[in-house]
């Protein structure tokens, strides 16, 4: 997720490193049928973007999953949620 998101941000002229893009990711492991499985992954992104770039960053956050190899591999099996906070500098 972070790699693809960073690519989407860079395409919008938003620098992504160092210390500008971080994600806190939590996977929920359950055993609905007696076998452990990952049912949900929630991703919370912490972005630092240049002043005036918050809207462009939000647009990237709303669409990048469509271009993410991991999300596209796992979709249908795992429920993903994405939240974020954006700090301008």
């Amino acid at each position, binding site marked *: *997720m*972070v*790699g693809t998101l*960073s*690519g989407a941000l*860079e395409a919008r002229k938003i620098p*992504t*490193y*160092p*210390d*500008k*893009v*971080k*994600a*806190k*990711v*939590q*996977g*929920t*492991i*359950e*055993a609905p049928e007696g076998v*452990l499985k*990952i*049912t949900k992954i929630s991703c919370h992104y912490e972005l630092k973007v240049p002043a005036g770039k918050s809207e462009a960053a939000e647009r990237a956050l709303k669409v990048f999953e469509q271009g993410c*190899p*991991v999300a596209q*591999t*796992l979709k249908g099996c795992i429920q993903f949620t994405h939240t974020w906070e954006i700090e301008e500098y």
Partner: protein
Amino acid sequence: MSEPIALTKITVIQKDTPNKIREAYIDGFSEPLLFGVHGGVKQFYGVNPDVEYPSTLDHIVSSAGG
């Protein structure tokens, strides 16, 4: 709704965008996993990183195998 059996918590940091390197810190472990590109994935993205690391897709496959 029942309580989850486990919650796996991970922090992922964009380390080096030109080389497509990310670090993932799994709660409870100090050493990060390093994600990058190599082989066909590197060619797909048209990049030539200074250092190659397994891709996130490699990690999915190794997890499945493991």
